[in-house]
């Protein structure tokens, strides 16, 4: 699964720390998700979509291998 968290953050001019604070997780966890090391739960993905003001599919996309 790929994601566009970095792009969405850049649009809002948010750091990883800013995003982490908005959804209540650590900066290290944001980094793990952003770099694809960890696939978040549905709840966390929805929270992320909500703070970015978009839908989950815009942030997370399935790849052919998924």
């Amino acid at each position: 699964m790929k994601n566009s968290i970095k792009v969405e953050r850049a649009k809002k001019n948010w750091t990883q720390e800013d995003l982490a604070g908005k959804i209540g997780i650590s900066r290290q966890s944001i980094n793990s998700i952003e770099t694809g090391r960890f696939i978040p739960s549905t709840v966390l993905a929805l929270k992320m979509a909500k703070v970015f003001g978009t839908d989950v599919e815009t942030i997370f996309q399935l790849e052919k291998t998924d």
Partner: protein
Amino acid sequence: MEPIKKQADRKTLIYSVLWAFVYMGCLFVLKKAELSKSAGILLSFVPTVFFVLFIYHYIRSISTMDEVERRIQLEATVWGFSLGLLLLMTLGLLDLVVVLKKEDWSFINLIPMFFLFYVIGIFISRRKYNGA
């Protein structure tokens, strides 16, 4: 870090240190003091109370962690448990063919190794998820 998480982490740290001190204290007394057998048995169970308190606060602190941190803790525990099991299995088999020195391989000497296995697990899972 949110106040609830901070408070849970602090309590876990306090109770882990408390348990470690009580355990070391009991170990020292049991080794050095000449106690009756019943007093010795009673003293051997004193660290259990502090260990239960530590585990209770440790589990509570896990519930305040986010999902990535929980996965790290879970994998570290799996590493720690698996390596501990492997050590006991190997020592059990070795014990059938060679005489293991009690002063090297007694339960007292094995306990720090379990802690070390958990630390190894934390290191591996942190590298996996945080890349650090």
